[in-house]
Each structure stands twice: as C-alpha cells, then as structure tokens.
C-alpha cells in the first residue's frame, strides 16, 4: 500500500509543482505588464 500511495502522491506533487511554477511565471509577467503600462523600465530590459 505504501508504494501505491507514494506513486499517487508523487504524481500530484509533480503536477502541483508545475502548476505553482506556472502561477509564479504568470504573476511575474503581470507585474512586468503593469510596469510597462506605467512606463517604468523593468529589470533586465
């Protein structure tokens, strides 16, 4: 049973990590867009 739960947990942990990465990327892009709208130079550009 331990291996079964480990496999199911690992599957969802992998998917959740990827979703968190996507959400973080989205927020950073939103901030960049807001700064562009304000006309401020963004870091790295």
């Amino acid at each position, binding site marked *: 049973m331990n291996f079964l739960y480990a496999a199911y947990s690992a*599957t969802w942990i*992998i998917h959740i990590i990827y979703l968190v990465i996507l959400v973080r990327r989205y927020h950073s892009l939103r901030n960049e867009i807001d700064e562009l709208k304000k006309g401020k130079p963004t870091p790295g550009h």
Partner: protein
Amino acid sequence: MKRQAEGDECRHENSMKRAFPIFAVLTAVLLSYALYEALVAAPTEQTMGNVQRIFYYHVPSAWTAFLLFFINFVCSIQYLVRRDKVADSIANWVAIVLGVAACAAAVVIRPLPSGVEPSSVATTGLAITGLYFLVKRYFSGSRTDALALVTAEVGVVFCTVVLVTGPLWARPVWGIWWTWDVRLTSTLVLWLIYISYLMLRRFSASGQTPVLAAALAIFGALDVPLVYFSIWIFRTQHPQPVIGGGGSIDPRMLHVLLINWLAFLCFAALICWSRYRLEVLQREVEEIHAMKGLQDPRSSG
C-alpha cells in the same frame, strides 16, 4: 481578410476564456471520480495486489505524454515547412496520403501483425491527418511554435510522472527499482531529448532557436514509436500491452483505465491552454520591449 481572421481569432479566444472555468470544474470532478475508481472501485489484481493500481496513473500518463509529443512533432514540422510554399504543399499531400494509406492498409493488408486491429490502423492514420490540418487551421505563424513549446513542456511533466511511478511499481513487483531494459531506457532517452529541447528553448538567444528546436523535436518524436513498439520488437521485462498486442484485461479494469486517461487528457488540455496563454502573453511583452528598444536605442543599453 487579415482583419477578418483577427476578428475570428478574437471571438474564438473570448469563447475559450468563458469556457475555461466550466472546463476546469468538470476536469476537477472527473479527476476526483477517476481517483475514486482507481483506488476503490477497480477490482484488486490477484498476483500483485493493490500495487497494481499504480497502473491507472502510470499508463494514462504515458499515453498523454506520447500524444503531447506527437502534437509537438506536428507543430515542429509545420513551423519548418511553412517557411517554404513548395515544402508546405508537399507536407499537406504527405498528410493526406498518410491518412488514405492507413485506411487502405487496414482493408488490404492481411494478416496484420498480432494484436493490431484494422480499425486502430485506420483511426491512427486519420487522426494524424486530422490533427495536422487542425493545427494548420487554428495555429498560424509563431503560434505553431508556441504550441510546440507548450506541448513539449507539459509532455515532459507527464513523462516525469511515468518515470517516477514506474520504479515505484517495479520495486515491490520485480524487486528492483530500475533495469536497463529497452522500454525503460528508451523512455528515459525520450525524457532526456525533450529536456534538452526545453533547455535549448530556454538558454539559446539566437534568432534561429525555434528552427533548431523544431529540427530537434522531429528527431525526438522518432523515439516515441520506438518506446511504444519496443515491447513488441524486443524481449523486455516490461509487462506486455494491455490493449492490443495480445494482452488481456478485466473489462472493469479497462473501464477504470480509460476513465483515468480521459481525466488526464482533460487535465493536460487545461494546463496546455493556460501555458499557451502565458506563452502568447510573454511573446507580446517581449515584442513591446523590442519595439521600445528600437524607438529609444539608449534604453536598450
């Protein structure tokens, strides 16, 4: 014409935006139901016991990863051939001929290899042709490249699930975590190829990156049939296929397997859609930065 196409695209995007929350809720319900079916409703396998239930996550994840890599392959071909009109029309004809040839092969070739159904040959051929023209119709120009990147990234996530759940099943059943068997090794190679594809996309700053990545993706996709058919061609430790290839499965188990695959397909579509929107937005921002750099060369450094 261009304005009309842009209007169509805008309407299409708006309807997709409205449908997104409904689709997300339906996917969550389907995933919960699939989990219940896999852990509770599916019958317990006699020899392996409960550990066999890993199969309901391992196999659908593998099929989803293969499908995503296949879409990446189609997008990469289209990205390359659209740069040349002759190559584009040749590719269109190849896609049509492939669909017709698969249907003809299903009727004409007798006997087909063991476990291969004529209907599955015809369906696969038609699906390839259909997918090719679907991508061509709805994804134009750099959007084909964006879709290629998105499907490769999500495909790698699903392939990672396959590579993690496989050893977790193998340890109690085979007594080992890993063996350098053809199926396992070719899956690892597939994962490494697409990791290198993503690294190329991430770290290369050359203007030719999408072209190089598309060429790499075409070679990477050639590994997919090798992974899939390796258990037919070579003697491997990996279990034989449960659908086709002479394998058999309890109808209740097959039902649970297909429910889980449907749930994972919906989940993959949902992630791909979100990631695609993010990619398009990111490209728009990069374009604005480039325009700003051209207007004010001092700001670009």
